[in-house]
């Protein structure tokens, strides 16, 4: 590896454009007339120094900003692609995706589905894009940060004439008393919060160097954030479980291994008043009731630790909360969110056994629709047996009675009624508003008396160990972003060369603002303002 030794004696790594110490442009860079490429102070980076092995090539690839921008743009386009049709998670749960896309959107929908775009954001190639984005950010930052840091640390006050001449903002002026002018300039520079270094009567004023670290800090934040996102693919990092809980019920909180139980004491829902003075007009247009709030009055229990193996401790109440949307209940690392509800779910039904002829009744049975008993003994020889129970009755395609689910949305019973008069039993088929006698005319019937309903509350159980990492990443990202965006790194050199004063300025952004500042700094001296060489060139090209 051949290094480049500058006139001033400083040894620079190969690939360096400007000497890290005195700023003299090196090698062929010195011959040209163009402005200096001041990116990263013209330092050599690993990606330029080592270019032979496979690892070097990979490093070069990912450290390239061009490649980085392509990765960003491709990610952008891919993300947009996923919004053309709804993702699978947003289509109605009752339909099959293979039918849905074709039925809803025709041929293009079918294609969308077949290309896997209905699950685009969890596809392997989208993940790969995000991963390469992370790798690119990491490598590009390492590649640039260390040399940049070194160059800004080792820079000298006095710069080579060719360095000054080829800065974007540059000018020379002749003044009678240089020292006096410099004193004025120094005072004004201090006013503008520049820190000033002097060497042999030359000045460099610098401010906002810390802004140069902004991109690196924000990139670190991004990487931490992306790592946090990737951690979600490891089991156990987070919990996301849906649960239904009825009023009055207490059940175990899923994924807590039986340690926590939750009770729903009451579910409350409140609607907006349709005659509301403020909202009335909007509600009329919406044309229906609008929910104001709903909540579960929850009690949290923890199982006592008895210490003895095999014996379960009692449930002990440890907390109470009103869980509403936007107001989850938190305990341990868990959070319970209110997400949905179902009003008036059937809970129990009551029937009486009735003599069809006389209308005489023989005792009432109350059936718990979630846990019906198989026999209800009414005494004195009267007895009801439940032969079959379909909580959510439907006639299957082969015309066999069956149930859709265990939720009693349409309960149907096949009862067998035993009385002293009919000891062999009579069969009846009873549901909501149906009462059939499939085995022939009966003497007795089950008469519907009452039904009890309950509200059911839907909660989501959440635990997420990646959140702290995401928060830290996001926080660091924002700090770096603000640091790099709201401050600029500015340097102004004032140098005495051949009895003249040379002024050169450099900033990483916003040259106009830099020039305004220079104008202010020299305003009480006879120094003439340096010009923006890029602007000059543009004007010259035009005319």
């Amino acid at each position, binding site marked *: 590896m051949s290094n480049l030794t500058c006139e001033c004696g400083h040894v620079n790594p190969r690939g360096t454009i400007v000497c890290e110490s005195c700023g003299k442009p090196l090698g062929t860079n010195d011959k040209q007339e163009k402005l200096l490429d001041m*990116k990263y102070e013209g330092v050599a980076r690993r990606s330029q120094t080592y270019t032979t092995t496979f690892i070097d090539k990979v490093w070069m690839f990912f450290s390239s*900003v*061009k490649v*980085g*921008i392509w990765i*960003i*743009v491709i*990610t*952008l386009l891919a*993300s*947009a692609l*996923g*919004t053309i049709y709804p*993702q699978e*998670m*947003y289509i109605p749960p009752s339909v099959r995706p293979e039918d849905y896309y074709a039925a809803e959107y025709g041929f293009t929908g079918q294609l969308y589905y077949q290309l896997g775009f209905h699950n685009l*954001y969890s596809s392997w190639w989208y993940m790969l894009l995000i991963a390469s984005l992370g790798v690119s950010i990491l490598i590009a930052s390492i590649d640039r940060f260390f040399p940049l840091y070194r160059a800004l640390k080792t820079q000298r006050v006095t710069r080579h004439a060719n360095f000054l001449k080829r800065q974007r903002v540059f000018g020379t002026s002749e003044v009678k008393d240089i020292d006096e002018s410099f004193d004025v300039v120094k005072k004004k520079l201090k006013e503008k919060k520049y820190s000033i270094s002097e060497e042999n009567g030359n000045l460099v004023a610098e401010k906002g160097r810390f802004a140069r670290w902004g991109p690196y800090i924000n990139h670190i934040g991004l990487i931490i954030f992306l790592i946090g996102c990737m951690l979600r693919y490891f089991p156990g990092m987070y919990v*996301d479980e849906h649960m239904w809980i009825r009023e009055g019920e207490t059940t175990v909180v899923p994924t807590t291994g039986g340690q926590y139980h939750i009770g729903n004491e009451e579910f409350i829902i409140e609607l*907006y008043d349709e005659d*509301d003075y*403020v*909202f009335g*007009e*909007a*509600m009329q*247009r*919406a044309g229906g009731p*609008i*929910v*104001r*709030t*709903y909540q579960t009055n929850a009690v949290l229990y923890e199982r006592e630790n008895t210490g003895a193996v095999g014996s379960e401790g009692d449930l002990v109440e440890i907390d109470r909360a009103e869980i*509403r*949307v*936007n107001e*989850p209940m938190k305990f341990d690392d868990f*959070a319970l*969110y209110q*997400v949905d509800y179902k009003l008036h779910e059937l809970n129990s039904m009551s029937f009486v056994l009735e003599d069809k002829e006389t209308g005489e009744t023989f005792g009432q049975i109350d059936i718990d629709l979630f846990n019906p008993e198989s026999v209800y003994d009414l005494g004195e020889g009267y007895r009801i047996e439940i032969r079959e129970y379909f909580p959510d009755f439907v006639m299957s395609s082969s015309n066999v009675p069956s149930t859709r689910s265990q939720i009693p949305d349409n309960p149907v019973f096949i009862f067998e009624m035993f009385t002293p008069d009919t000891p062999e039993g009579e069969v009846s088929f009873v549901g909501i508003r149906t009462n059939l006698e499939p085995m022939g005319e009966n003497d007795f019937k089950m008469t519907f008396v009452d039904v009890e309903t309950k509200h059911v509350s839907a909660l*989501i159980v*959440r635990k997420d160990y990646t*959140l702290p990492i*995401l928060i830290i990443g*996001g926080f660091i990202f*924002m700090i770096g*972003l*603000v640091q790099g*965006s*709201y401050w600029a790194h500015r340097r102004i050199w004032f140098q005495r060369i051949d009895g003249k004063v040379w002024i050169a300025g450099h900033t*990483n*952004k*916003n*040259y*106009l*603002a830099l020039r305004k500042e220079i104008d202010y700094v020299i305003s009480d001296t006879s120094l003439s303002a340096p010009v*923006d060489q*890029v*602007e000059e060139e*543009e004007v010259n090209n035009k005319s």
Partner: protein
Amino acid sequence: MAAISSNFLLFAFFVYLLATIAFTVSITGKKWRDKQGEMTGNRWGFFGFLLSILGSLLSIAYFITRWIHSGHAPVSNMFEYMTFLGIAIGFAFVIIYAIYRSNYLGLFTMPIVMLIIAYGSMFPGEVAPLIPALQSIWLKIHVITTAIGQGILAIGFVAGLIYLIRTIDFTEANKQTRSLEFVLYAILSLVGFILMGSIFNAMNYEANFAYINENGMEAEMTYTLPALVGPNEGQLLTEGVMSPIVHAPAIIVANDLNTVIWSLFSGFVLYWVLRFVLRKRIGAAIQPILKGVSPQAVDEVSYRAIAIGFPIFTLGGLIFAMIWAQIAWTRFWGWDPKEVWALITFLFYAAYLHLRLSKGWHGEKSAWLCVIGFAIIMFNLVFVNLVIAGLHSYAL
């Protein structure tokens, strides 16, 4: 209170109009002499600046009174959000003007502010109740911050537009001139939409149709503009109104499509009338007004606006959005179209910053990117909200 609040907004609108006039005079009017007798331009630019501050103050008054009236921050439906975006562009202008004192920027920004506020006012403006998920302080913080960020990014768009009109060579027809004219046409279509909507609204125009909807059911649909495109198998129920020329298939929301056609059509008419009157491309007609603009300077203004707006947008549109989503929807990210388009906006401006900083995309390329960036923002607000409605849809 509701009336007071609307009046404040109306006043703000007119103050922005006055500011536009002041900035126009500052550029086209006579130059004044200062104490030393030198020509230094006139004071109208400063008046314009004061008026824009007054406009912002009146907007704040609108915002606060409406907040008090409804009990929640007025950023929860299309009307409220759009007007707030207009207000935010006004704020952003005040900030950027304070740094760069560019009257040209005022001349272009003030009309855009008015346009966006007027556009917002086309949506139903009554105070709507909030469903439970929207009743969160984080939602308000998220939306307000996002709008301010977008407002500042919009200044980048305006400066980019000025750059393009200032520098593009209009003597030939090529990709640049055509694209720029297209941008101006898009703005005119927005004007057209507002004009058509206001005119027919003032006439209380309404046409009802019975039609067959996408589920094969009979339904009714109301048009507030004359129907060029009627709904699927639509039968006019209102008498004495125009009957449609064609009928849309059932899967298309026909009255929305009709509105879009009217906007594009009236924009088209406006564009060609202007072009006929001016006898040249609209950009070419504006160009002479901008001859005093330094391209370097507007280029820097546009970049500065984006550099200021990007962190604020990121904070509001992604970070606060995630905090709210975590609390309200139990997960910080759900790949909902609105979220995805916020991410796209973020990625787009990130690409812009890298192209500019590391690939030296200054001047024209950079200006085009600013225009596209703002188009993405508007797309997210309008199209994604109204058409690909997800969780965040404001349309009640």
